């Protein structure tokens, strides 16, 4: 490391800033300074924690969603079944749809790694959890048998028709859906709602294929496809247009250091672009690189000379030099 920094360029003038300081010195007890700083910070932290505590807004569950906003739950599950939900149409890394990727000009880096976390919303969020619960309900067994016996085209027609009817029903209420040819879909979704209300779907979405689990990708994707989670977040001023990424629940300081990242989402063209995430991240990557490389960027590295904050920092030294 030092070898890199100590390359000698004999033709260049001597860099006075790189020369060892040979002027006067003052006593400086680093260990004492650190010890005092540690004690002060520890006491300050303990006091802040005692006075202000910390937020812990309780997590929501699929069961709460199904019980508190059952219409939203059923509508969301229908879109998972007919493949029109946010997750079903997301593209990489969840589904195979290169056209869904966000772009930075002609580039779509979202597609580059491919589908690394495959999600089949109809099977993962609806069919497979129902299969696990089918043994306790003859109606559900029959509905699933009808669904499986149908062609993929027929399945899609049933689900899409029900999705359309549910969207048009007052309050998206399944009980007020106009009559139509929906096949076994209403029974399946009614049973999914019952399963979700008991908490069974929380476990079913998490435990697919293994006993131990720490990966909440599927239940979180399902939850985020509805409006219930967003309603809860917006009530806590966490929405994307509320500087949400840097906020905390309640009146607590959140990740204030993300202000610049969050800022771009509040202004055009980012706030109205379908490629906002890719554009903001692309911009932040460039700015981050510039931040790291400040010492090498002409103009930027000279700003400190133009804004004389240094006069304040070293005012005692300059005063002593003047005397």
């Amino acid at each position, binding site marked *: *490391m030092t070898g890199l920094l100590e390359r000698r360029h004999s033709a260049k003038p001597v860099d006075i800033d790189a020369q060892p300081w040979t002027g006067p010195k003052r006593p400086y007890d680093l260990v004492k300074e650190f010890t005092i700083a540690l004690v002060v910070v520890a006491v300050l932290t303990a006091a802040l*924690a005692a006075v202000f505590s910390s937020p812990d807004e309780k997590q929501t569950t699929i069961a709460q969603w199904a019980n508190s906003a059952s219409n939203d739950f059923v509508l969301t599950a229908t879109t998972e079944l007919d493949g029109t939900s946010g997750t079903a149409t997301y593209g990489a890394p969840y589904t195979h749809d290169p056209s869904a990727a966000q772009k930075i000009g002609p580039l779509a880096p*979202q597609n580059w790694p491919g589908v690394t*976390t495959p999600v089949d919303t109809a099977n993962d969020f609806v069919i497979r959890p129902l299969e696990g619960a089918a043994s306790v309900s003859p109606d559900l067994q029959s509905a699933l048998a009808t669904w499986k016996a149908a062609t993929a085209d027929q399945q899609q027609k049933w689900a899409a028709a029900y999705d359309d009817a549910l969207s048009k029903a007052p309050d998206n209420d399944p009980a007020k859906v106009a009559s139509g040819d929906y096949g076994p879909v209403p029974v399946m979704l009614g049973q999914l709602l019952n399963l979700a209300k008991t908490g069974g779907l929380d476990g079913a979405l998490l435990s697919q294929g293994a006993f131990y689990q*720490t990966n909440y990708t599927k239940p979180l994707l399902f939850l985020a496809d509805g409006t219930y989670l967003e309603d809860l*977040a917006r009530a806590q001023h966490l929405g994307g247009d509320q500087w949400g990424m840097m906020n905390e629940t309640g009146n607590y300081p959140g990740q204030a250091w993300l202000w610049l990242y969050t800022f771009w989402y509040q202004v055009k063209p980012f706030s109205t672009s379908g490629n906002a*995430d890719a554009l903001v991240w692309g911009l932040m*990557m460039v700015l981050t690189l510039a931040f790291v490389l400040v010492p090498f960027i002409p103009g930027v*590295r000279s700003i400190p000379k133009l804004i004389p904050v240094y006069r304040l920092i070293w005012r005692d030294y300059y005063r002593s030099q003047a005397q």
Partner: protein
Amino acid sequence: MTAAQPAATKPPTDSEAGSWTGWVRRRALRNFPPEELLPDSQPVYVASWIYVFGVATIAAFIVVLVSGGVLALRGPVWWHGSDVGHYVNSLHLWSVELFMAFMVIHLWGKFFMAAWRGRRAMTWITGAISFLASIGTAFTGYVSQQNLDSQWIATQAKDGLNSVGIGAYFNVLDFGQMLMWHIVLLPLAVGLLVVAHVLLVRHRGVVRPLPLPPPKAEVPAQATPREAS
């Protein structure tokens, strides 16, 4: 900074020659002699409150590590159902807020001091990357909280990460992965970067004051060699 010629610059003895251990020791002592590593004096210009924030950042980092370590003792669920655990979580939160605040003040201070002068660019770079790694560490902590905040932040942040391909490998919806990054990988990275940063500061010494511009009525006899910008 001035430094006495360390004894380590002596030619190696017969037993040291060819020894990897001896080579590492000689290199370490040559680059970081004890009087540079732990000096008891500093140039006279090192006399401002701004210098305190570097040390304060390290102090807060230690409080962050200790409070996080106590949280780790009983696992990630403990603090949700225990008053003691909740207080420890509060310690962790506020120490992080202080850590980031001190670091940002330190960073702005160093920017306005143009502290990268005199072959100190790597000192700036390690500090800047420490800041970025700290943001990542804090972020993974926020998505590992197991509450509404973490649920919402994770589902929102995935879109940004996925849009540039990072989400394919760094899945913010995977609690296990985020917790491991938060309590092992990123703190280790921050710790190593901070050590490298401090060693560079000690090796190069504290940057000199910027030269004051000459009074407007006078013409400088000779320009001080400075970086071209």
